[in-house]
């Protein structure tokens, strides 16, 4: 369950970063809304599984750091830095979580 939601979140992130890298800012923001929903669903799924005593382990501290950095980049209007953080830091963290479970 959580693995699927992580994979979906990664896909959603890729769509956002691709648009920001192509300087298609408006479309990127629209896609970001969807990505945030996917991330929300992922976190809910992880929390549920943790409560049930299983599932994927995610470094929550690191996740918070990454999201804070990303938010700051957005505040500065730096969509490339935001894309970099999502593409390399966040996706890496999420991929690691999936791999850990494997």
């Amino acid at each position, binding site marked *: 369950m959580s693995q699927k939601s992580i994979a979906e979140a990664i896909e959603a992130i890729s769509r956002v970063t691709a648009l920001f*890298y*192509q300087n298609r800012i408006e479309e990127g923001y629209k896609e970001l809304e969807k990505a945030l929903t996917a991330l929300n669903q992922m976190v809910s799924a992880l929390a549920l599984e943790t409560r049930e005593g299983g599932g994927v382990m995610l470094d929550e501290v690191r996740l918070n750091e990454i999201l804070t950095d990303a938010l700051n980049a957005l505040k500065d209007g730096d969509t490339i830095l935001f894309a970099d953080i999502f593409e390399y830091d966040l996706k890496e963290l999420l991929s690691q979580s999936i791999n850990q479970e494997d």
Partner: protein
Amino acid sequence: MNYYDLNMELIKKNHDYLYKNLIKDGISHTNRLDAIETVKARDGENILLITYKGNTYRLNSMYRPVEEAKRWSEQYKFQNIKTVISMFGIGNGIFARAIIERMDESQVLVLYEPCYDIFIHVINNYDLSDILSDKRILIAVEGVNDFEFHLAIQSLIDVTNIKSQVQLIYPNYDHIFTESCVKFFKEIKDSMTSSRININTIIKLSERSIYNLFKNLIYLPNCMTLNDLKNYIPTHLPAIVVAAGPSVEENIEDLKRAKGKAVIFACDRILEYLLDKGVEPDFVVTVDPMKERRHFSLRDDVSVPLICTIHANHDILRHHVGEKIFCTSNFLVKEILNMLGREASNIPTGGSVAVSAFSACVNLGFKRVILVGQDLAYSGNVSHAGGEVDARGENDYILIEGIDGNMIKSRYDWKEFVIEYQDLIAVNPDVEVIDAKRRGARIKGTVVMPLNEALEQYCPADDRIESIEFGNRVIADRKIIDNIVAYLEGYIPVLKRISDEAETAVRKCNIVIRDNGRGLSGKNINDSLKRLKQINSFIREQEIYNLMDSYITSVTANQLSELLIVSENEEEYNLSTFQKSKIIYEAVIDASKYIMKMIKEAIEELKNHG
């Protein structure tokens, strides 16, 4: 060797004009940055950080800049042949490289850097040797060689690629250098307009140009060239180019005073008006293949020496009784003049006879040229001297900058002429150009000064000439005429062969088009393409093809403009290529036959030449 030396050596070798301007003093720095530095990205790549107007911008990804550029470039497709890609911003070259990776050999990348400081920083701190060595790339830096950008864009766009232009912006550059970005796109838009006007001009004039060329050959044996004229022209005096704008009327008395103190060149349309008012110019200039006689002079005794191109309207040349001075140097005229022991000369001929007259003055060696009646704008609804009203002045006009800085009513073609003037003035900095009008379009590079003041200042009363004498010249004898006839006859079999080859090509195209529905094999298509390629090479190698080219363009502009646009669907693309090619080959056949007919007529006329 450090980066600066390495890059500068390659700029010197491959971008001569840029190099000369870079090392020249007095470069105008249009975008002085507060700070610029190179820092390391996480992957070790060098990236740029700039501070401009108090804001700091990072011009590359802080993580993986090359990957960022690659992803950015993936949104663009450069599948059409001969595409011109214009990019606003060079930065440290990483984005340009991502584009270059995706280009084919036929395509050109024009890089425009709006910030001199960035360019200088980059050539000091980055290895740009791959970009600087690539023959497909042109580089322009604002304030250094932006004029080259203007010329490059104009010369690279033609009928075959006008529909497949691509413009790119280095991410963020449009926000940082907004004013320059507007300028960049305006330049491209203006160039596209120029190209469209050129194409329309070719469409409109090509057949008539060929007709005039062969009809006017008869005048070559007794003509002068602009080069010959140099021997007789007092270039220490100013030249006055009189165009046909409404403001000529208010300068008539001064033009009468100028006679003998300056050399007066009248543009075709204003001749009659000047003669009516008692001003006999020293020369009259005509270049338009379709200029109507009523817009020149309906008199049959005009003896004012005529400066013209070989393509100028034969009807005008036929009725003109004075000296004819040619300024065309295509291969045919060049060769014939060579047989006559003369040297051909050439002037650029755009759409404006006045610009051509100005070019002729520059070519002759005048160092001071006064423009009269070059309004390039409406005076109310009046477009030309003599009160000629043009309805477009009421409802189909554009606004351009006037000499007083206010916007004034003008036309698209006049705006083009302003640009043509400005280009010519820019490449001839040693020629002083005075614009003697009190209203009208601003021509950058000219000094605005009323004609009476210009005459006071530059035409001293004691320095005057009564008339310009041309002296005696050797007139061509029968033997030379026979040689010219033999030379022209030599083209008949060549044209016949071109026509035969084009007919073979049409047959090949027909077979491919017919068999298309039956699923033609790749081998058959390749064989046909190979044969067509051979035919194309043969046709293009023929000197006479230079004359056919504009004729073919005129009747196949639609096909030519789409021939190099590559479709995603290969089968569809192949079929469409053969369909368009067939129409073009048919035009080649028509052009060959038409030129053959005109050559035969010219031969007959030369044989009867007295």
